């Protein structure tokens, strides 16, 4: 195998496979942190129910301008 091909292989595999592994480890740590904050399973179930309602609100918000083009949301945040 030529030196150039070897370097390219290390770079490409490093970015794609290495990037995937780093993102996966980061996601696992974030998820573990979220689980710790969320507490018990029962709490999570109650929260999920509340989230479904909250979700419906978000959807409703975006859906209020079915015919209105792009000026529909009343929840715009600013920096």
């Amino acid at each position: 195998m030529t030196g150039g091909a070897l370097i390219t292989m290390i770079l490409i595999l490093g970015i794609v496979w290495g990037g995937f592994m780093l993102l996966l480890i980061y996601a696992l740590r974030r998820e573990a942190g979220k689980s710790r904050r969320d507490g018990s399973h029962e709490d999570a179930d109650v929260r999920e129910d509340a989230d479904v309602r909250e979700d419906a609100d978000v959807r409703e918000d975006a859906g209020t301008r079915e015919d209105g083009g792009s000026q529909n949301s009343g929840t715009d945040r600013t920096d």
Partner: protein
Amino acid sequence: MNTATGRRETFSSRWGMMLAMLSMAVGTGNIWRFPRIAATNDGGTFLIPWLIFLFLWSIPLLMVEFTMGKSLRSGPVDAFGRLIGSRFRWMGLWVAFTATAIMFYYSVVTGWCLRFLVASFTGEIPNAVPGAFWQSFEGSTQAVLTHVTMVVAAVALVYHGVRGIERIARILLPTLILLVIILLVRAVTLPGAHIGLDFLFTVHWADLADAEIWLQALTQNAWDTGAGWGLVLVYSIYARAREDTTLNAALLGFGNNSISLMAGILVLTTIFSIQPDAAADIVGAGNNGLTFIWVPQLFAKMPAGQYFMALFFLALLFAAFTSLVSLVELATRVLVDRRIARTRAVVIVGAGGVIFGLPSALSPAFFNNQDAVWGIGLMLSGLFFAFAVLKYGARRFRLNFMDSEDSDFRLGGWWRYLMAFVFLEAVILLGWWLSQTLSGEGWLESLNPFSEWSLGTVLLQWGVVLAAFIWWNRRADRGKVRA
């Protein structure tokens, strides 16, 4: 989808969802298309734009789809309507239709994988004449039978809802990855494997000026990550309420392309180890030629090749089937959004899949035509997603839907430039493709709408579909037809 208790059905966990999404994204595009496209576009040279478009096409569009699905909880048609106004629902309909049109022939491909898996067990392949089995099978009643079998299997799974999809993904995806790793280890330990690695990773920098390589790199990214298909949008409808979207989208893009690279290495090292003299013929034989004619011949020349060939077709079948399931789910979701009961919707999609897949199962020319027309149609789907975000306001989209407290990483002000760039990429590449097609000597012939593959056939089919959808949208907005 709501359960009997009125509670929305969701994936059981982040990892359950990610497995389902990754199994959706990893399909035949990774295992048979990526190695061939990489090989026919100068190997290592192709990998540079392919990697760039992962960041500048696939991941941004996956983020958009993830966010639209999770925030708007509707299939593509209503998601476009809710985001940018009901008069743009035709764009969502285009996205959904393109994926459904692909489903019609993708079930045929999945059926081929099933037949070749069986044939590798029964010893029907390889035989003395390369391609003899494929030629006797392609377009036959057996191809119809396997097509119907795969549609029925996918419909049966989708019938059981998102938890059924998650359960099967938890089994099939890890198995698929294990199979690919086994085949990869075998391939790179073959004598002469380094020639294949050399080919795959040697960059000819001057060739990067060739626009064809960039176009192929973008379409390959669209094909194998599933970005812009609407499939991630549909699966995200079932995401848990406080799910992250940005990190998950990046994870999906990187995970998918990791498997593509594994497939590329395993296929090309196998080819260059076993038949280096015929490498150009093999990679130039097209998707079907490479997989269904040459792969059996290659494995036959390897110790214990029959077993490795069976593993290869098993991996291919798993990859194709899980992608087919997501296509069936998308079409079903569109009908469910039109207030059709899920059970009925699944049956309608199954019946449609069987009927409209028949021409592709029986006619290779029809199959090739549909593959070309709707494959390129994905670029238009991606363009519509980018348009939707820009129309809504890229900054508003980020602030309202993406940068929430549930997000694992926040996007910056660069997001709006990235979305503008994605939109421009699609416009430029579509324009470039049109000009290339029309600039050759046979430009008049390329306008023939009835040839197997021509600009004319693409424009005719796109034109009819777009006109019908825009007409429907206008009528629906005026209340003249059911929205």
